[in-house]
């Protein structure tokens, strides 16, 4: 089956889960990435049970800090 992952169309094994895709794509800090499939968020804790289908569009959304240091301190 073909998936569009982060804008690139690629062939994957039929019926893989989002968790498997995260592993195949070597996603950095996978436990803190937000995944969307066809413009819906994949709920936390359902990556293992969310099965992907031919034609699905998947995006990985990463935490990114940056800017300056210490403008906020507790």
């Amino acid at each position, binding site marked *: 089956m073909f998936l569009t992952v982060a804008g690139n169309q690629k062939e994957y094994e039929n019926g893989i889960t989002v968790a498997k895709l995260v592993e195949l794509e070597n996603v950095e800090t996978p436990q803190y990435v937000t995944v969307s499939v066809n413009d819906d968020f994949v709920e936390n804790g359902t990556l293992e049970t969310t099965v992907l289908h031919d034609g699905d569009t998947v995006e990985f959304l990463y935490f990114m800090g*940056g800017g300056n240091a*210490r403008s906020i301190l507790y």
Partner: protein
Amino acid sequence: MAFSNEQLERYSRHIILKEIGAKGQKKLLNGKVLIIGAGGLGAPAAMYLAAAGVGTIGIADADNVDLSNLQRQVIHTTSDVGKPKVESACETMQAINPDIEVKTYQTFVTSENILDLIDGYDFVLDGTDNFPAKFLINDACVIAKKSFSHAGIIRFQGQLMTYVPDSGACYRCVFKQPPPPDAVPTCRQAGVVGAMAGVIGCLQAMEAVKFFINAGNLLTGSLLTYNALTMDFRKIKLPKPDGKCPVCGEHPTILQPFDYEQAVCDLKEK
């Protein structure tokens, strides 16, 4: 309010644009932006917004200029090392454009003061580097119904999104809660190319300008990502809010801003 001759000349390249014109320039001159963080992202944003004639710019940062800041925080110079960042930023902004008012807040932004800080501003620009701060700014802006620009940078990558009340996802819709301290790399641990702060900070300034002149499309409901190594810009469509977000949803449980604990290592390192 009529333009002075000096203003007509200073803003001539804006006024000539059909999307801005005299009307748009007046909107900019009447505009009020609060920049939280006078660092990598805040520096270029503050300089361009000052130059653009955004009439009132607030800048909040508790820190002093450090030598390691100068690789990317172009609003400060070598002779500013040791000076409060907001003071150094204010001097540069007023040197670029004495036509605007700069308000400085040399303070840590917390749940105690954030609502007072953002009150009276039209647009907030998040130039902070840490996740507790980013969630605090998001929650406060959602609660106070303020539009704001979120951004993050690391290594050769950057991203930004814009929140406008009732038009698309907020930062918490996407990212839920801050990752545990040290779970994802920070700039200090992982590094960042100075020009990345320039690229993304300028894009935040561009969003603020478009917000005031009401031209084109803001980055609401989408996240723009930039990879400098591959030179790919991607505008990722974000899912529509499903109403379940604890701050911007239909039955919010976050009704007041609150503070997450800051990473302990961050405190020790500096």
